């Protein structure tokens, strides 16, 4: 079927796949970090993402900040909010039971959605790019994603705090025995994870309009991606995110827009049947 697609359309598919893929990479990496360190699935991840989009939107409208710069501001705001929410909510119930964690993060979805609805109403908003050229936007989106992911990589791989995060995710008790304050690490990881989600939200609001409820589907896709990539595998989240974007882009072009959201889940189900540990994950021992 692909053979029938002309080269310009093929390029369009690939570019669009990469752009959407960038958003998925950012979203899934944050979700993955939170899961890796805290073993908590943050179901409200999509709402943190959209909140990031709204904050950038307001900054660009009311302060006149370039949206590509406001990414970094909204990232910090949402990150700090993430730290506070971890401290006030998750910290209290972590380790009590999986059900409590589930209810808490499901509840957060509605708290955040309603708050955003009050602050920004339910009308869709779009962040207007300051640039005329769509191509320039695409280049910047890919560039910013690379920048943020490189920063994230350096933080996780090359710094002491990143080492402590990885240690906590690999062996929590041993990390405590190294003198690491794992509660502190939880807070930081949740903050960093939600900050990454916020960057995804700003990019999303630049390419398409958002409402307070736009986070639900992307969050589901991010879950798919980290399951596909292998829970806790950082490289898996990157390759999975880009791959997911590309596959979705192909499906939309070839099969039509109605397949956009279904195709990923079909793949997920297939992969889980063939490789239950995910594509890059390792078998639990």
């Amino acid at each position: 079927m692909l053979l029938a697609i002309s080269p310009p359309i093929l390029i369009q598919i690939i570019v669009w796949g990469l752009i959407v893929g960038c958003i998925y990479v950012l979203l899934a990496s944050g979700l993955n970090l939170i899961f890796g360190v805290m073993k908590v699935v943050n179901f409200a991840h999509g709402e943190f993402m959209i909140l990031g989009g709204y904050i950038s939107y307001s900054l660009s409208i009311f302060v006149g900040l370039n949206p590509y710069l406001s990414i970094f501001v909204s990232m910090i705001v949402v990150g700090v909010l993430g730290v506070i929410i971890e401290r006030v909510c998750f910290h209290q119930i972590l380790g009590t039971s999986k059900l409590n964690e589930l209810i808490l993060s499901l509840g957060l979805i509605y708290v955040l959605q309603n708050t955003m609805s009050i602050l920004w109403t339910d009308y869709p908003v779009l962040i207007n790019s300051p640039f005329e050229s769509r191509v320039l936007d695409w280049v910047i989106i890919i560039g910013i994603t690379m920048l943020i992911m490189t920063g994230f990589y350096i933080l996780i791989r090359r710094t002491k705090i990143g080492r402590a995060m990885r240690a906590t995710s690999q062996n929590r008790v041993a990390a405590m025995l190294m003198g690491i304050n794992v509660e502190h690490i939880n807070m930081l990881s949740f903050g960093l994870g939600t900050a990454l989600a916020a960057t995804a939200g700003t990019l999303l609001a630049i390419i398409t309009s958002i409402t307070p409820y736009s986070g639900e589907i992307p969050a589901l896709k991010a879950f798919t991606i980290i399951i596909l990539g292998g829970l806790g595998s950082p490289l898996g989240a990157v390759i999975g995110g880009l791959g997911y974007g590309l596959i979705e882009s192909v499906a939309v072009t070839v099969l039509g827009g109605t397949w956009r959201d279904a195709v990923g889940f079909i793949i997920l189900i297939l992969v889980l049947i063939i490789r239950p540990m995910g594509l890059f994950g390792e078998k639990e021992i």
Partner: protein
Amino acid sequence: MLEVDHISASYGNIQILWDISLNVKEGEIVTILGPNGAGKTTLVKTILGLLHPNSGSIKFLDKRIDKLPTYKIVNMGIVLVPEGREIFPKMTVYENLLLGAYGKEAEKNKDQSLEMIFQIFPILKERRKQLAQTLSGGEQQMLAIARGLMSKPKLLIMDEPSLGLAPIIVQKIFRVIREINEKGVTLLLVEQNVHRALEIANRGYLLEAGKMVLSGDWNELLANEYVKKAYLGL
């Protein structure tokens, strides 16, 4: 240095430790002996704050530590080489060692500590870029001990460091224990290998079914009729 005073501890509703007292003085090697399931690991977990006692108190350098979180206890200078290695599998040997030197004091001395460790365990130097999970069991145990040494502990607690190792490596580990003790590190050693442990320890405690049944100097314990019969097969 360490004073455990009449503590009891439980997992949920199941009480494991009953009225345990124990002390370690600066510069000593003290050993905790006892059969499987006696509660030795539970006792060291309680000292490290991984489990909080239901009653009794624990003091380190004259400060109460029984309500502190683990990281604070570690940063005061008590370091545990845990039972079953507990290394960080997906990090390199070098990164594992760096994590040992996470505390501020230890970090300052990390180059010096690394040098010492690579001298004691040259194999770890060779393997320093390898992921810890790819080490052999014995090498992982060496890594766990080395990581403990990186922390510059005042009191080093080792939970069965010789478990599952070849006799020649066990010998080496006991030599290392003696060496680091001579360098001024106080040691609390959990062992099943009663003979070996009493050979290097100043004193020992015998734990059975969660109760302290016997304690004394190494030679007293070695000469004790009950210890001889039950643990030394004499």
